[in-house]
């Protein structure tokens, strides 16, 4: 049975009391906390300390902070050297630069060497907004999840971002943590479970089987929950929403259970449809439990300037986009099975 976490979530999710806060803030606080309890933790940043909120750590532990300048390849490989000497390095930048620009260094010097370097890629997805397509990483999950030994985490809010950073330090090998630029609704609470490799249900009940499963990750978990509520309340369709905060290793049992139960899944992510979380889920299902899957993600395209809302709407990543996907996948389930 997939753990149901709905009662441990923020009770204000469907109210106008819901606060939106920064994931990066959670990450920065998490790093600071780690620094206080573990002297092996070091942080490297490529000229983005304020944007990545590594400045908290840098101010308190200047001797354990390395400013490498605009040089992400050097940042990854230097971190590898530090890890080889027993440190637990966290490298932080925008996802488009790290892992965007330093993939081979991550592959060879970190993963191939099996060293515990933790890569924080912030400003992932189109919700970066005004900076435009050049700065909106939509390929980073694909780049990271194909690497042997890499763990890929994609927290959905500030609290999960902090927990992800804390958990990453305890993972033996390399870890990639994907974060958004924008403030995202605070969905979870301190008591919501966060275990690397474990998915949990954020919407739905085990009282009756669901007709549709939505697997969402990162900033779009909230959109998935909004869509699920509309489907239930307006259309009488029972839905379960899974928060997949670990993209690799996949929680196979939880995903298979949801697939068997519903026979129709939607994956939701702020990433290319190709190679991302939806692909990972599809790879699993193709071999173990082939059901209809509809991917909500960017369809072989680049981002552009705009507000986060405009862009989510344009690329059909918001609740309307998810509802449209729901109609498509439920039609197939009903008509083609």
């Amino acid at each position, binding site marked *: 049975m997939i753990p149901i976490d709905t009662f441990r979530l923020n009770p204000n999710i469907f109210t106008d009391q819901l606060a939106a806060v920064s994931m990066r803030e959670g990450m920065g606080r998490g790093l600071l906390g780690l620094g206080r309890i573990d002297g092996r933790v070091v942080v490297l940043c490529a000229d983005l300390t304020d944007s990545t909120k590594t400045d908290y750590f840098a101010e308190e532990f200047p001797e354990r902070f390395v400013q490498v*300048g605009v040089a992400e390849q050097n940042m990854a490989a*230097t971190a*590898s050297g*530090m890890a080889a*000497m027993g*440190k637990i390095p966290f490298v932080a930048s925008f996802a488009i630069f790290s892992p965007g620009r330093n993939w081979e260094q991550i592959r060879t010097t970190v993963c*191939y060497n099996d060293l515990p370097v933790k890569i924080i890629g912030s400003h992932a997805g189109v919700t970066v907004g005004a900076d435009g397509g050049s700065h909106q990483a939509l390929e980073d999950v694909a780049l990271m999840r194909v690497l042997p030994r890499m763990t890929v985490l994609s927290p959905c809010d500030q609290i999960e971002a902090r927990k992800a950073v804390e958990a990453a330090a305890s993972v033996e090998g390399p870890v990639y943590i994907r974060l958004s630029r924008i403030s995202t609704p605070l969905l979870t609470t301190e008591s919501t479970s966060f275990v690397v490799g474990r998915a949990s249900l954020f919407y739905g009940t085990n009282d009756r089987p669901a007709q549709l499963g939505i697997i969402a990750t990162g900033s779009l978990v909230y959109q998935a929950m909004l869509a699920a509520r509309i489907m239930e309340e307006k259309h009488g369709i029972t839905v379960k929403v899974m928060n997949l905060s670990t993209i690799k290793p996949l929680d196979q049992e939880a995903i298979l259970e949801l697939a068997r139960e519903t026979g129709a899944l939607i994956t939701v992510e702020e990433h290319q449809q190709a190679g991302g979380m939806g692909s990972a889920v599809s790879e699993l299902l193709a071999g173990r439990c082939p059901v209809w899957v509809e991917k909500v993600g960017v369809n072989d395209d680049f981002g552009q300037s705009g507000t986060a809302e405009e862009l989510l709407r344009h690329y059909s990543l918001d609740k309307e986009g998810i509802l449209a996907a729901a109609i498509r996948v439920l039609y197939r389930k009903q008509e083609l099975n």
Partner: protein
Amino acid sequence: MTLVNKEKLQKLEEEAQQIRCLVIESLQSAGSGHTAGPLGMADIITAFYFHLLRHDPKNPEWPDRDRLVLSNGHICPALYAAMARTGYFSQDKLKTLRKFGSPLQGHPHREWLPGLETSSGPLGSGLSQAVGMALADRINEEQQEKFFYCLLSDGELNAGNTWEAAMLAAKERLYNLIAVVDRNSIQIDGYTEEIMPLEPLRDKWRNWNWHTLEVDGHNFEEFIKAVEQGQAVFNKPTVILAHTIPGRGVSEFERQYEWHGRTPDRKQVRQALKELRTLGGKIEE
């Protein structure tokens, strides 16, 4: 620091010849691999493993050892031969170079062979790793004085990553970091100054705020003295531009960029070993 006397120098020279022979033999057994680089760097690698490095082949994880990062992983046949000769593993393993299941992977993989400080092959990131090691060591309060060495090819100075690392090392004043550039002036596609000119190379490093030295990479005395000078510099990293002859020791291979990634056939092996063992006909086999 130990002084090198004449006797020691001669021993090192003889050892380097042995290593060249082992390089040729292991390449022949492998049937593929790089010939010019390992022969060209045999002297420098010998100087490190038999004289300069503080290491313990029987205890490769010894925390206080010096670290030697081989950035240009493709010259590993010479590294492997030196490791075998100093007792990291038995010499007959050299025959398994590049073969299935062998700890002597085609390019070094640290998980397969204790004593390797890193895995390398893709060029340009070794200096970063050595910089990271030196930085991490400085954070450790209980640190024992140790040196961090990085062997680089001149070809990989084409890579921006190398210069990013060079900037960081200078910024952090990593005085216990010594880089050695194998200045053999060839790379896969041709001569370095035709593919991507590096000169004035010493000025480049000097302007990057490194202490720079230029030596004959086949002159043990000169090279060892340069490393010792690098060890004595207290506020900067040191780079030694070591001029070497690619394919050194075998006249057919010397200075020919075509031998960068080629392996000798049986006849060429026989000829090469004869030339190495007789020091080019100066002594009897």
